[in-house]
């Protein structure tokens, strides 16, 4: 299966999780931790914005396929 393109939100949430784990580590470099922290704050903003504007999307696959054939 080809590597699919993830959505911005999932990317951000996953990255945020990653940053959290990094910051929890002992012996992290100070400069790196500051960079990660700043990146994290930026991601929090992106995620909050995405969630605020989110609306459930529903696709009818069979209908879509029929239309693509026509």
């Amino acid at each position, binding site marked *: 299966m080809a590597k699919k393109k993830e959505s911005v939100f999932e990317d951000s949430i996953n990255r*945020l999780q990653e940053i959290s784990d990094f*910051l929890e580590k002992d012996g992290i470099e*100070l400069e790196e931790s*500051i960079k990660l922290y700043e990146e994290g704050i930026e991601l929090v903003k992106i*995620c909050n914005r995405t*969630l605020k504007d*989110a609306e*459930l999307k529903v696709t009818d696959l*069979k209908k879509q396929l029929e239309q693509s054939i026509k």
Partner: protein
Amino acid sequence: MEQDIFSVSELTGLIRKTLETNFSDVTIIGEISNFKAHVSGHWYFTLKDSNAQVSCTMWRGVNNYVFFTPQDGMKIIITGKLTVYPLRGSYQIDVRSMKPAGIGELQAAFERLKQKLALEGLFNEVNKKPIPKFPVKIGIVTAIDGAAFQDMKSIAARRYPVVELVLASCKVQGEKASDEIVESINLLNKQNDIDVIIVGRGGGSLEDLWAFNEEIVARAIFDSSIPIISAVGHEIDFTISDFVADLRAPTPSAAMELATPDVNEILSFLSEFPNYFREKMLKIILNYRTIIDQSVSSYGFRLPQNIIKNKMQNLDNIYYRIQNSFENKLNQLKNRLSLLNNIVESSNIDRILKKGFVIIKQEDKFITRSKNIIQGKSFNMKFYDGEIKING
């Protein structure tokens, strides 16, 4: 009189007419054996009891209306007509409809299939795929007009509205339902961007749920490269699909809850992040401060300081030495000065004595007042020209 002589075909034709006229609509109960589903779509099997057996066929198109796949050993009730196959001189039942002889038959079939698939390892925990935490697209295999789909939609909208639901609609009960479920699972697998699939439907009778107990559905679930959550009926309903799926949910709503993270949890994680990690950062900084303090107080770090201190002490020593020698010189000069001063002073006294004054000395002390003299004790009188002793 000679008996009538029939050709084989004539006899067979007569038999055929007799049998097909008299048994054009029969209902028979019996146990299936030698069941074969031919690639052409036709079914061939034998129906038997302890003393007899009869061959049966059920043609493609007709067998579409059977909601379950027959299994050997299953007791069924069939309706059909008797036909004769002249080429072999045999008779068989052309089956029109088929149903299990009782609910127990379905349960028995369920147990048989469950045991068979378990032996093949289809339920093994090692084959279960993990369900992704943050899905982008959730595939759904259910009926588009079913309550289950509505339930799943509202749960997704409430819990995780950033997700996309991709519905591959299909029949979930009755004839052909199992084929359609398999088709939908395969269709979603071809999309290659689906993170997880929910296969399910709402509650119903054992017959209603039967499609999810079919072997082809179980195998399609097992073969899916996308993780599958099975959600059939209510909490108490267990199907073969539940056992083979990567995760079993008690209901379709519960399946959607299992497939999606809670947006409120994410929001609280997001709101906690800045504070929580500000503290974390402060801790990291404090750790570094401690390391700096420790380094400063280490022996290596004190070394230059010690050198400076030693130099300062040397400097002090030199200063003292210079100061001492200077003071000695000064003292010498002071001594000389007082000596000279004495000389000057004494020359001053000489001049007074010359005028005729006398200095009285008793016990080497100058007596300048009469009250200071000790009566009856010898004293000296110093004149300009000499000193005499007066005895007491």
